[in-house]
């Protein structure tokens, strides 16, 4: 980690890593799409509508994961002033917002045929909507001040405070009554979902993960280059 603290070290490392992440993303997303649409069987209760799961669930996982990363990086930036931390958090924010949007829209499209409603104000759906607004709030705060560093700090504080929402999302289906089904993959007693549905889901999720990693590296590189450009333009006239 200390080696990564140096932005120019990060530029070298990310340049080497990014093509591999991109290739893995393309491979896993391609395979995942094939498995999800052609190989996975229809569910015995939900029929073909279960295929929505293969975009809904990976998007939901990545929405929370990206937030955890954003909040963790923000905390590191606030406490240790690590030069890459805020860059990582700000690069992750629009990606997390995108995953959350996919999760909300695909969930709604799944809810209508299965629950008979596009939306319910229960704990799971509401807490994921709050997650979406946390991302939007982070992005807005970041740009809300003329002094960039103040915006960065304010957004980082919001990200750290908002982390309380993550366990609420995770356990909302256990703590409150909801139409949403309970956890069926990451369970202490093992997955309860059928393996024929689980494998395509995991392949797709790995694809989403590598996609996130690729874009995170790309956006961090862009942010570092932009910082260098700003320093050249305003720092040394």
């Amino acid at each position, binding site marked *: 980690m200390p080696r990564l603290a140096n932005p*120019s070290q990060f530029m070298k490392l990310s340049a080497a890593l990014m093509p591999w992440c991109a290739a893995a993303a393309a491979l896993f997303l391609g395979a995942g799409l094939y498995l999800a*649409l052609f190989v996975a069987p*229809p569910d015995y209760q939900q*029929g*073909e*509508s279960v*295929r*929505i799961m293969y*975009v*809904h669930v990976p*998007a939901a996982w990545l929405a929370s994961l990206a937030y955890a990363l954003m909040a963790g990086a923000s905390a590191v930036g606030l406490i240790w002033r690590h030069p890459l931390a805020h860059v990582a958090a700000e690069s992750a924010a*629009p*990606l997390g917002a*995108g*995953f959350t*949007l*996919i999760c909300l*829209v*695909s969930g709604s*499209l*799944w809810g*209508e*045929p299965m629950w008979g409603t596009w939306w319910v104000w229960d704990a799971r759906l509401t807490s994921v909507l709050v997650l979406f607004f946390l991302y939007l709030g982070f992005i807005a705060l970041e740009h809300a001040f003329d002094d960039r560093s103040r915006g960065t700090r304010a957004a980082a504080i919001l990200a750290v405070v908002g982390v309380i929402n993550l366990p609420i999302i995770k356990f909302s289906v256990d703590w409150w009554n909801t139409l949403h089904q309970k956890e069926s993959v990451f369970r202490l007693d093992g997955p309860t979902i059928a393996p024929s549905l689980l494998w395509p889901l995991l392949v797709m999720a790995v694809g989403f993960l590598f*996609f996130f990693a690729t*874009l995170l590296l*790309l*956006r961090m*590189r*862009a942010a570092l*280059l*932009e910082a*260098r*450009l700003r320093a*050249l*333009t305003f720092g*040394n006239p």
Partner: protein
Amino acid sequence: MAAFFAMGGYARFVWPAYAVAALVLLGLLFWSLASYRRIKIELAAREAKSPRRRKQAARNP
């Protein structure tokens, strides 16, 4: 093939879900790529204006 696109009667829910996912992910990809390229071009132009900086950049790219 028609049966595949019909998705057992759930076509109007399954395909929009995949379309939204593709749209958002590709949107993020192209937006991020475009801003990366724009910044690279601007930085190259700015560094070309300042020879001292250009030498420095050549030493540690």
